[in-house]
Structures are given as structure tokens and as C-alpha cells.
């Protein structure tokens, strides 16, 4: 709008200035004439003399005009108008180019915003490069990074000298329930050690963070996020000191954090608490973050941590044998799970933009060849070469600017769409970047760079062609229908490149689709149909009685077929060390999954009992401790033996309790399909009640209705409990594959665009070649070539080009898909079936694209064509 106004003003001003000059000269002549008449010359003579004296009015006007200093701007403006007119005159070229660029730039910018937010932008804390995450490292061959036990953390903090601060935190999956009105609400929260905020170097906006005493205090302190403070407390500064009721007892609000601090994606923080937990060494469930002292390198700190961990492994050989520690830069640790995937997506999207650029370059090339006559004419009439290049540059800029603008709109929209494809659960690691994937200045700079690059390509391609051909030659070429070989070679190269890039993307998509299908068909080991998982909050006192009573009433609730309680708040569980009693493992205890479940668990789940028996009512608190193991554990730790009847030792809270194995169940897949099934031990809830738990409910009815009925049943036992959250197992399974599904969809979209553009590219090239070679075709037909020959000639040319591209691309594919290995499930990155089928698909599409121009060529009527020249 503003630009339009400026342009309008310039035009107006310009017109006024012209008129003034005209008036000024007229006044000059008039006054001169008058002066001469006054000295006695006759009027006619006076007018002529004045005019003679003044000189050539037109030339003087022109000379004066040049002093206004607008001519360069004027020329640009002229070229701009000419460019717009030109582009509007060939709407199909313009629309296809703009859309192509918009698709390319939109996709690239959207993915870049995500990559920028997640990987590139520094964390919003002071000196983020000083922050480090510390992990325990498991000695077993499956190895990997583990969380940290409270006791280990405590020793680390006391012994490590390289950290200014070492803090631990744990984001509690179930959230905390707070009562601000009659009904409680559940908000995501984390338990943190008192120095947590100091470690990040972010002071609270209001009030204070935690102090050492908060860990021992009788009432819990609570720090609010800015968002929660604004939405639930109206941003009132008087919240400080306010007591609120929570499911962890009464809590006092002591501080509010600034808006940018939400780590680890929570709305409230409470102190870790002092007691009980700090002695646990065998259970590792704390996250540890530290701030390194100035001048201490990561390697030095890592070395120190390993020697501390080494000492602990000796001192506490029972729990820590062979365990060591590992430090990672905090920003890397945060994106550990998505880093590779994001890089692959970014790589894929680079292929899209390359194909898009190649396509637009090809279109421009064709257009510039058909405009050669115009260029030659303008040169012959004295236009300078720079002016012609400028004209091309302006048209290139116009297309790239409009394309980029459209692309940015597309990107903005697709970032939103991207996150709406992800369910908000812990299974989808990308969801936590929804706030940081913004179109910030970095993203705009990126888009501007791509835009400038494409404008240059759009200009250079035709310029390169015309510079190679001299003026005289191009005039001749314009008249003559012979093709310019150099440009054809360039165009062919572009098409080959497009096909090479397209097959890489298509192969990637093919592999991801195969993985996804295999994930969907994976063996679950149970029947997910009609299963619901519901959280089960417990009262502070008499938990055992409550669970018994609640379970009784839930089983009686309408729609419920059967129900059990399990210790994990969701599917999956935590790991504890175990050992065989009869033949202890030479390397000490091994970590296995561990769930406490009520008697009906195996039956409710629909899992198969392979040997022995399931839990029953005889397994009471007083009875001998029992356990059920899964097939995987039986195979791995009791090879060639019957495990039923043998005894294992389980660690729990620094106790070692021996249990008898009474049964073996089939493996139940609990994690995402990419993860291997883990060895697992089930113990009886009565013998090992858990502080938190979840309900597993089997129903034949409507899940929403059953959920309501179960909720009523729980509240009929204890009215004060917060509401339960519920998920159907089908939702859980969908969520588990949501991330692979998203990668598949994105790759699919990229490949669809790539395929479309590659097809347009080869179609455009052949159509152009056919039109340029119509003479040759006509002659061939005239001397007796048959329709079939012409068809073969043209299609052969197209197939040769696309096949070259495909072969080159396949080589690249074999090199590149290897990088995708971590995204694939049960598919080899060079799966021959996939590669062959995408190559055939591409070849077929290329053949179809070639057929249309080939048919046109074959229909050539020699008389019309030859007469035309």
C-alpha cells in the first residue's frame, strides 16, 4: 500500500516538475520578447529573436531534466513496469514459476524454523554453553545413558569441584493437582533441587526461588510459571505467600518465574524434598544438570565425573559396580532424541529447493531462448547490454520475491499444521519445540538468502546463454530455428539433476513407508482393542484399603469387563536391579523392567501365560514373595532351563528380597515399535504396593462412558481425589507411531513435490525440443519416417535423460539413506525392493510425461511446417 502511494507521489511530482520547467521556459521567452518590444523592435521580430537567442527548447528541456537525477531510478521503474507487464503477458510461466518457488521455499523455511528453534538458537539462559547434562552410564552391553540415582547425585554434588552448581530435577508425568476452586486441576510440574534456578542463572520474576531449607520445610514451597500465574492467578503480585491445597499437601507460593523460563516444559516447580529418597542408589530416575565453572572444559569436568563415579562404583559395588558417568553439553542433551531426524528432514528439504530452483531455471531458459529475437532487436536498436541484464534481473527478482512471499505464508501455515499432526504426549519428542519453532529474524534471513539465490539463478541462466552467443549470432539464431546446443546441454543437465534428487527423496519415502507399515503390524503380545489406561490417584492414608475398595467398585461399574492396577502411571515402567539367587551373574546385578500389578493384570491385558501360573488371591502380604517373568527374560537369563520355581533377588529401596518365579508370560510390547522388547518382572501389588499407579480396564463399551463410570466409582470411595486422566490403548499406540508417521508424511509431501516438479521439468524440455525441432521432424516425415519412429525418437531422448538421472540418483541414494538408519524399523537403508520399485515408478512417470510431446511430434504435418518457414 505504502509502496503504491510512493510510486503515485513520484509520478505526480514528476509531472509537476515537467510542467514547471515548461512554464519557466515560456515565461523566459515571453519576458525576453517584452523586453525587446520595449526597446523598439517590432513584436514578430522580437519573438523570433528571443527564440533564436534561447536555442533549442526541446534539447534544453531534456538537458535540464537530466539534472533532476532521477533518470536511473526512472529507468529502474520503467524496467520494473516492463517486467511486470512481461510476466503478466506469459501467465503460465509466471504462475508455474511462482508456485514452484513458493512450494520449495515454503517447505524449506518451515523445516528450517523447526531446526532453527530446536538446534540452532541458543538456549534462553545466561551463558548456555556452560550448562552440562550429567548421566550415569550402564556397564551392560546394551549400555547407553541412564538417569541418576538420588544417592549418586548427592555424592556427585559433594565431590565434584568443576561445577558452580549441580542440580537435579524430575518432571513428574502425572502432574500435580491443585485446588483453586471446588474442583482440582492437574498441571505439569517438576520436582527440583533447591539450586535448580541458580544453575540456569535465571532469577525469579517475583519472590524467590528455592532455598536449602525448603527441602526440610514442613509445608511445600511452590514456584509458578509466568503462564500459570497470568492465567490462573490474574498476574496478581499478592500470590506470594498464598497457601494452596495440592495433592502433595498444603503448599506456599514463594515465587514466579519470568515468561521465558518453562524448563522442563512445566507450569510449577516444587522442592525435591529431603527424606527417604536421598538414600536410594539402585533406582536411577533423576535428571542432572550442572553449570561448569569458568575456564573448565567439558573434557576436564567429564574426567572428574568419571573418577568420582569410579570411586562410587568401588565403595557401593552392590549397586554401582561398573557404573560410570558421562557429561554432555546441555543443548545437545536436550535434542539427543530428535537431532538426527531434524538434520535428515533439513537435508530432504534441501533436495526439494534444489529441484524447485532447477525447474524454474529450466523454465527461464526456455523463455529466454524464445525471447532472443526481442533481445537481439533491443541490442540492435542501441540498448546497452547492462540494461538487458537488468531487465532479466528485475524479472527474476519479481518472481523470487512473489514466490518467497507466498512461500512464507505457506511456511507459517505449515508449521501450525505440522504440530497439529502430533498428539501432545511423551511419545512425540518433537512436540516440545512447538513454542520455539517461530518465524524469527533468523528464519527471515534464511528465506531472504534463498530468495536472493534463486533470483541470481533466474538471471544468470539466460545471461550465461546470451553471453556465450555474440550479438550477431543471437540475431541469426533468433531468425533461424536451429537450436543452440550449449543451452540444450544446460537444460538437459537440469533435468538429469532433478531426477537424481527426486529419486533420493522417493527412496527415503519408500523406506519410511515400509518401516511404518511394519510398525503397524508389529506383534503387541496383548489385545489393545477395548483397553483403557486411567490414572489412579491415591489418598495420603490407607492406600492399600483404598486400592482394594476402589478396584472392587470399578469392576462392578457398568461397561467394565475386568480391571487391574499397575505401578506404572502409563504403559512402560521403571527398571530395578535383579540377580539370580542360585547362580548370581558374574558381573553383578542387571537392570530389568519391573512392575507391581494386581492379580488380574495378565488376564486384563489379554497376554498369554506360557508356563506356570498367574498371580492369585493366595499371594497375600504374608505369603512367600512371588514373581512372574516375561519370555524375553526367561530366554536371556534362564537359557535352556525352566525358570518356574527358581528364585530371583530383586532390589527395592536398598533391600534385597528373594522371590520365587511362578509363571512366564509372553512378551508384551510396551515401548514404541522401534525399541526392542525388554526383560520384565511382574510382582504382586499386595506384596509390593506402589505409591502411584494406573488402572488397566478392559471394556466392550464406549470408552468415554466407561471412563465416567470408573471416575464415579473412584469418587464414591474418596470424594477428595483429583480427576483421573484416561487414554485408550489405541490412542497410546497411535501416539507411539505419531513421530514416524510425521516423518513419513513429510517425506511423502517432499517426494510428491519433487516428483511433480521433475515431471514438469522433463515435459517442458521435451515439449520445447519438439517445438524447436519441428523442421527436422517434418523433414524426417517427408522422407518417409513413420509415426512410430518419431515417437520412439522423442521418448527415447526423454527416457535416456531420466534414466541417467535415476542411475546417478541411485548411487546418491545408497550413500545417503544410510544416514536414515535410526529412523527405519526392520528395513535396510538400501532395501533393493524399495530402490527398484521407486526407480521403476520414476521411469514410468517420465515415460508418461514424454508421451504427450512425442505424440505431438509424431503428428507433425510436413507441409504445414515446411511452408511456415
Amino acid at each position, binding site marked *: 500500500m505504502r509502496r503504491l502511494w510512493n510510486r503515485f507521489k513520484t509520478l505526480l511530482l514528476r509531472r509537476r516538475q515537467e510542467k514547471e520547467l515548461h*512554464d519557466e521556459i515560456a515565461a523566459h521567452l515571453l519576458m525576453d520578447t517584452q523586453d525587446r518590444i520595449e526597446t523598439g523592435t517590432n513584436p514578430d521580430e522580437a519573438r523570433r529573436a528571443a527564440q533564436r537567442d534561447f536555442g533549442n527548447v526541446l534539447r534544453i528541456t531534456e538537458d535540464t531534466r537530466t539534472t533532476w537525477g532521477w533518470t536511473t531510478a526512472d529507468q529502474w521503474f520503467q524496467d520494473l513496469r516492463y517486467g511486470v507487464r512481461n510476466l503478466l503477458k506469459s501467465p503460465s510461466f509466471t504462475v508455474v514459476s511462482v508456485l514452484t518457488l513458493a512450494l520449495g521455499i515454503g517447505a524449506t523455511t518451515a523445516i528450517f524454523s523447526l531446526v532453527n528453534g530446536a538446534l540452532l538458537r541458543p538456549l534462553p539462559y545466561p551463558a548456555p554453553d556452560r550448562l552440562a547434562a550429567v548421566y550415569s552410564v550402564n556397564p551392560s552391553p546394551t549400555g547407553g545413558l541412564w538417569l541418576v540415582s538420588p544417592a549418586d547425585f548427592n555424592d556427585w554434588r559433594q565431590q565434584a569441584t568443576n561445577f558452580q552448581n549441580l542440580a537435579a530435577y524430575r518432571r513428574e508425568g502425572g502432574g500435580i493437582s491443585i485446588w483453586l476452586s471446588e474442583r482440582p486441576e492437574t498441571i505439569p510440574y517438576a520436582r527440583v533441587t533447591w539450586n535448580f534456578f541458580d544453575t540456569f542463572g535465571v532469577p525469579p520474576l517475583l519472590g524467590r526461588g528455592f532455598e536449602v531449607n525448603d527441602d526440610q520445610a514442613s509445608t511445600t514451597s511452590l514456584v509458578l510459571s509466568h503462564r500459570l500465574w497470568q492465567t490462573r492467578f490474574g498476574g496478581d503480585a499478592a500470590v506470594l505467600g498464598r497457601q494452596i491445597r495440592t495433592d502433595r499437601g498444603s503448599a506456599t507460593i514463594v515465587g514466579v518465574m519470568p515468561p521465558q523460563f518453562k524448563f522442563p516444559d512445566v507450569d510449577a516447580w516444587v522442592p525435591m524434598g529431603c527424606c527417604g529418597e536421598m538414600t536410594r542408589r539402585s533406582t536411577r530416575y533423576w535428571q542432572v544438570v550442572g553449570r561448569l565453572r569458568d575456564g573448565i572444559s567439558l573434557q576436564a569436568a567429564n574426567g572428574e565425573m568419571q573418577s568420582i563415579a569410579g570411586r562410587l562404583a568401588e565403595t557401593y559395588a552392590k549397586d554401582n559396580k561398573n557404573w560410570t558417568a558421562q557429561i554432555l553439553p546441555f543443548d545437545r542433551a536436550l535434542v539427543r532424541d530428535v537431532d538426527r531426524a531434524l538434520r535428515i528432514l533439513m537435508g530432504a528439504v534441501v533436495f526439494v529447493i534444489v529441484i524447485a530452483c532447477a525447474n524454474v531455471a529450466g523454465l527461464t531458459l526456455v523463455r529466454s531462448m524464445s525471447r532472443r529475437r526481442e533481445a537481439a532487436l533491443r541490442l540492435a536498436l542501441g540498448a546497452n547490454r547492462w540494461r538487458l541484464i537488468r531487465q532479466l534481473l528485475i524479472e527474476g527478482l519479481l518472481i523470487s520475491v512473489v514466490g518467497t512471499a507466498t512461500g512464507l505464508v505457506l511456511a507459517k501455515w505449515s508449521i501450525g499444521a505440522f504440530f497439529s499432526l502430533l498428539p501432545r504426549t511423551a511419545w512425540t519428542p518433537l512436540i516440545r519445540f512447538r513454542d520455539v519453532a517461530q518465524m524469527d529474524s533468523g528464519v527471515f534471513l534464511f528465506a531472504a538468502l534463498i530468495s536472493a539465490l534463486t533470483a541470481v539463478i533466474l538471471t544468470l541462466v539466460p545471461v550465461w546463454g546470451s553471453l556465450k552467443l555474440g550479438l550477431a549470432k543471437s540475431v541469426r539464431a533468433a531468425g533461424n530455428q536451429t537450436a543452440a546446443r550449449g543451452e540444450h546441454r544446460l537444460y538437459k543437465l537440469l533435468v538429469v539433476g532433478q531426477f537424481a534428487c527426486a529419486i533420493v527423496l522417493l527412496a527415503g519415502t519408500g523406506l519410511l513407508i515400509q518401516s511404518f507399515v511394519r510398525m503397524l503390524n508389529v506383534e503387541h503380545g496383548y489385545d489393545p482393542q477395548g483397553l483403557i489406561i486411567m490414572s489412579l490417584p491415591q489418598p495420603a492414608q490407607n492406600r492399600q484399603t483404598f486400592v482394594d475398595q476402589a478396584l472392587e467398585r470399578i469392576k462392578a461399574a457398568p461397561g467394565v469387563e475386568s480391571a487391574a492396577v499397575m505401578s506404572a502411571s502409563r504403559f512402560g515402567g521403571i527398571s530395578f536391579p535383579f540377580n539370580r539367587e542360585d547362580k548370581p551373574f558374574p558381573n553383578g546385578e542387571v537392570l530389568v523392567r519391573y512392575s507391581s500389578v494386581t492379580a488380574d493384570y495378565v488376564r486384563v491385558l489379554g497376554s498369554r501365560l506360557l508356563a506356570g501360573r498367574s498371580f492369585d488371591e493366595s499371594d497375600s502380604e504374608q505369603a512367600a514373595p512371588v514373581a512372574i517373568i516375561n519370555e524375553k527374560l526367561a530366554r536371556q537369563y534362564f537359557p535352556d532351563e525352566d525358570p518356574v520355581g527358581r528364585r530371583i533377588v530383586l532390589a527395592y529401596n536398598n533391600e534385597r528380597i528373594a522371590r520365587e518365579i511362578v509363571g512366564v508370560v509372553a512378551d508384551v510390547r510396551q515401548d514404541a515399535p522401534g525399541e526392542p522388547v525388554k526383560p520384565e518382572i511382574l510382582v504382586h501389588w499386595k506384596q509390593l504396593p506402589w505409591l502411584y499407579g494406573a488402572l488397566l480396564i478392559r471394556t466392550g463399551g464406549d470408552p468415554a462412558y466407561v471412563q465416567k463410570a470408573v471416575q464415579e466409582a473412584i469418587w464414591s470411595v474418596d470424594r477428595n481425589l483429583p480427576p483421573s486422566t484416561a487414554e485408550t490403548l489405541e490412542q497410546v499406540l497411535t501416539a507411539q507411531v505419531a513421530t514416524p508417521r510425521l516423518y513419513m508424511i513429510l517425506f511423502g509431501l517432499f517426494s510428491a513435490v519433487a516428483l511433480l516438479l521433475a515431471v514438469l521439468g522433463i515435459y517442458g524440455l521435451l515439449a520445447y525440443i519438439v517445438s524447436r525441432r519441428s523442421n527436422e521432424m517434418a523433414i524426417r516425415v517427408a522422407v518417409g519416417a513413420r509415426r512410430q519412429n518419431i515417437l520412439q525418437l522423442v521418448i527415447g531422448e526423454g527416457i535416456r535423460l531420466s534414466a541417467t538421472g535415476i542411475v546417478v540418483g541411485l548411487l546418491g541414494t545408497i550413500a545417503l539413506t544410510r544416514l536414515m538408519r535410526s529412523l527405519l524399523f526392520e528395513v535396510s537403508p538400501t532395501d533393493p525392493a524399495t530402490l527398484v520399485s521407486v526407480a521403476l515408478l520414476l521411469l514410468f512417470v517420465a515415460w508418461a510425461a514424454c508421451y504427450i510431446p512425442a505424440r505431438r511430434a509424431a503428428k507433425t504435418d510436413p507441409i504445414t511446417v515446411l511452408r511456415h518457414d
Partner: protein
Amino acid sequence: MAIKAREKNRIDVLQGTLDMLILQILQWGPRHGLDIANTIRTKSEDLLKIEAGTLYPALHRLEQQGGLAAEWKTSEKGQRAKYYRLTRAGKKQLLAEQSKWERLLKAIHLVMRPTEG
């Protein structure tokens, strides 16, 4: 004959001095283009004649550069004309050009004076 001789004696205005002359003339008040040309001619006793083809581009250039400002006024003879006047920047430019010109004159004089001995 007298006229012819005078024509012959006319000097082309030195490159760069026209601006100075215009600024000098406008020191004493706003004038229109014809007035400026006539004043230069009479003041130089007909030795300098400024062509319209050089005058108007110069005036417009000075106006663009900010040395001159212009407005439309009615002359004493009742004709509307574009009157140019000196701006503050124009005055500064005039002073600078004057001192440059004087140094140039002095230098030319030094070179051109008959050598002694």
C-alpha cells in the same frame, strides 16, 4: 562591425565558474532565469553571455543540490516567473567558490606574469 567584434571577444564561461556567477548574482536578492542571464551579461559589459542551454541545467542542478530555492512570483511587469534565491547552503558554497577562485586567479597571475631577468 562593432557587434561582430564584441561577439568575437566573448569568453566562454570557464567550467565550474558558472555556478559561482549565479550564486554571486543572487546575493542581492531573488531573480528569475532571464534576469540572471541579463545581469551577468550587463555586469560583464557584454563579455559573458550565458546560454539558456547552460543556464537552466545549472539552475536546476543547484536547486537539486540545495544551494538555491525557488518560488513562483509575479514580476514588476506583471509576468509570473520562477524566482531563485540563495539558501544558507548556497551562501556557504558561494564563499567557498570565491576563495577558491581568488587562489586560482593568484596562481594564474603568478604563472603568467613576465619573468624578471
